[in-house]
């Protein structure tokens, strides 16, 4: 199959013939992709407002503080973007394999292994120029995380092991390896009560985007999301992946190398999460310890599903969830709500978005006349 044929296929599948179609017919599907999640979000916020009202708090206060804490000031925006940065990358770890119909939920494990590999690379290269060390950390993080998820892909391809279960279990194995090394071979003897590796050194940290408090991880995330989108929707490789995801037998019949696709996509997915781990080390923690297991990998699953596995949609969804978590503190402080209320909101949004899936293609006025 040639590139031209593949791209032609995308066009044919995505849009009806260009001649004499109405606006809704042409853009109805795209509008749906914005309207339905937005409605689901508003519905979820309304239900959460009722939930909070039962606690005896004013829902309007709730909405104001959520907005204020997430987007209300420049500080709040930076807070939100900082929290969104790792989520974009960990969400890609779920969204990329989803194109193949695989459900990978082990981004947390790839993040930890990526962090560990990046730290090991930095510690092995002490004394080299910072830019060299940083590049080595990126490479190590990408390879470490990539191979970790490739393990799940290989188990699925060659042994028929369910990739969802294996990737989840690999999270705990990854955490155990991290703890083992951090408390043993890689431990800085000076880290008495918080076993940690040695620090990678202030010079090797990647710092923040000028003029902001947001670290460069956000840019890495944006680039990775956009690159993933192009890969999936505008290359032969991506088209082949989506064909295999739609019907694996058909893909095999037309001669697609499904095994190679699975391994490559799994590697790219893990590479994204591994990169998130590298950034946590190089932009935030400065070393590896148990703090890295902060659940970014798991929140990333939520982001990917809310974005309907679309790499571009992951960006606004990650910002939204970053905002919810940024405003969570303000809800605790101003309204006296327990921390779990943020989890309740995330859960309600999740349920609404999943339920709203049933609406696609069923909203009459968006179909247009033909």
């Amino acid at each position: 199959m040639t590139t031209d044929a593949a791209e032609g296929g995308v066009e044919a599948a995505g849009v009806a013939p260009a001649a004499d179609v109405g606006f809704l017919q042409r853009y109805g599907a795209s509008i749906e992709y914005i309207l339905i999640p937005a409605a689901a979000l508003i519905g979820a916020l309304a239900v959460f407002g009722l939930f909070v009202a039962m606690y005896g708090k004013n829902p309007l206060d709730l909405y104001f503080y959520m907005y204020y804490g997430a987007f209300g000031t420049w500080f709040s925006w930076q807070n939100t973007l900082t929290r969104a940065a790792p989520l974009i990358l960990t969400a890609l770890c779920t969204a990329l394999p989803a194109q193949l119909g695989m459900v990978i939920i082990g981004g947390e494990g790839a993040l930890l292994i990526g962090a560990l590999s990046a730290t090991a690379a930095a510690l092995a290269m002490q004394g080299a120029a910072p830019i060299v060390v940083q590049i080595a950390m990126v490479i190590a993080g990408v390879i470490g995380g990539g191979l970790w998820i490739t393990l799940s892909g290989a188990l699925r391809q060659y042994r028929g092991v369910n990739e969802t279960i294996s990737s989840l279990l690999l999270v705990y194995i990854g955490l155990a390896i991290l703890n083992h090394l951090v408390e043993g071979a890689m431990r800085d003897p000076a880290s008495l009560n918080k076993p940690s590796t040695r620090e990678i050194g202030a010079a090797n940290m990647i710092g923040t985007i000028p003029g902001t408090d947001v670290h460069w991880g956000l840019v890495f995330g944006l680039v990775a999301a956009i690159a993933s989108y192009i890969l999936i929707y505008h290359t032969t490789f991506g088209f082949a992946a989506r064909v295999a995801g739609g019907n694996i037998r058909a893909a095999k019949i037309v001669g697609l190398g499904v095994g190679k696709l699975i391994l490559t996509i799994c590697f790219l997915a893990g590479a994204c999460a591994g990169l998130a781990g590298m950034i946590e080390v190089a932009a935030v923690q400065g070393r590896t310890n148990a703090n890295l297991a902060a659940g970014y990998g798991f929140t990333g699953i939520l982001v990917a599903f809310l974005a309907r596995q679309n790499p571009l949609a992951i960006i606004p969804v990650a910002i939204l969830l970053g905002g919810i978590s940024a405003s969570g503190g303000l809800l605790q402080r101003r309204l006296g709500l327990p921390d779990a209320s943020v989890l309740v909101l995330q859960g309600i949004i999740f349920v609404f978005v999943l339920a709203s899936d049933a609406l696609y293609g069923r909203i009459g006025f968006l179909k247009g006349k033909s």
Partner: protein
Amino acid sequence: MDFGRISRRHLLQGGAALAAGSALGLRGAMAAETTIGFIYVGSRDDYGYNQAHAQGAAALKKLPGLKVVEEEKVPETDAVEKTIESMINLDGASLLFPTSFGYYNPHMIKMANKFPKLRFEHCGGLWSEKDPKNAGSYFGYIDEAQYISGIVAGYSSKSGKLGFVAAKPIPQVLRNINAFTLGARLANPKATTQVIFTGDWSMPVKEAEATNSLIDQGVDVLTCHVDGPKTMVENAARRGAMVCGYHVNQSPLAPKAYLTGAEWNWEALYPKFVKMIAAGETIPNFYRGGLKEEIVKTSPYGEAVSAEARKHADDIKAKFLSAEGYAIFKGGLVDNKGKTVIAAGTDRGQKDPELEKMDYLVEGVLGATS
């Protein structure tokens, strides 16, 4: 969702808010209404580490002119930096208590450098000369209270087998296990402490399994060093064993089985800190103390504690409170592998920095550090 419009409008407002934030920083350390921020790593009603700090915060709320803001379940990542900044920028906090060990370096140090006019007090860190002057670390010699618990446990155990559910083999934990065992052997020289490490600070399932397995081996008095002792206390009481508490008083959970416990006394220390600041005194950057300094305390004895045990424990407690003090770790101390860890003739008093590096289990402890 129109993030773009919001962002432009609030960029300007945000600039103003940022300016206001730094103006707050320039305000005197203790103005008419002072806001104090508390940050917890777990939930503040965990019957453990975080509740102990929340009790200290509650004591501050009773003082006039103070406003306390609290946030729970804040992970040890840049999330805590953002929470600190949010408390400063949005709530006007001028004194901050990030209470979890992992908040210290790099997170709290970074914030202390960023807001040099504000005061940061951290629980458990090891402040050193290279750290900012507006940051401090405080901690208590809670092994004194564990030693008293050990004495009571030694008298109360019929089998002479004691159990210890511990998180990680780090110096602070090993010191508690050793002090508890040495106290118990004061009461019953043949007493042994079986220790089980769960591997992390909050592992309720493993803690319950450890509790059950200890009781199955004939242990009849248990204590622990994990973040939330609730699991151990409730399970042990259900099985008919007795318990010594940790962090806070857990007797409401098991009124009959509760003997005594090693508690933090933050409700005495925090008001003291605030009064020192108000009086213009400087809080030492490295602040430590035990029973005598009222940083730790013991729970009131339960009804099952014999008169003999009470008398012995009270005698030792009086020695801790006396001017000359009392050394738990005395010369001629042998570890459980038969090696002499403190040479005869050198008593290691509480403030001895060697004790902060403890990496052994004393004779009488059944278990290994790795």
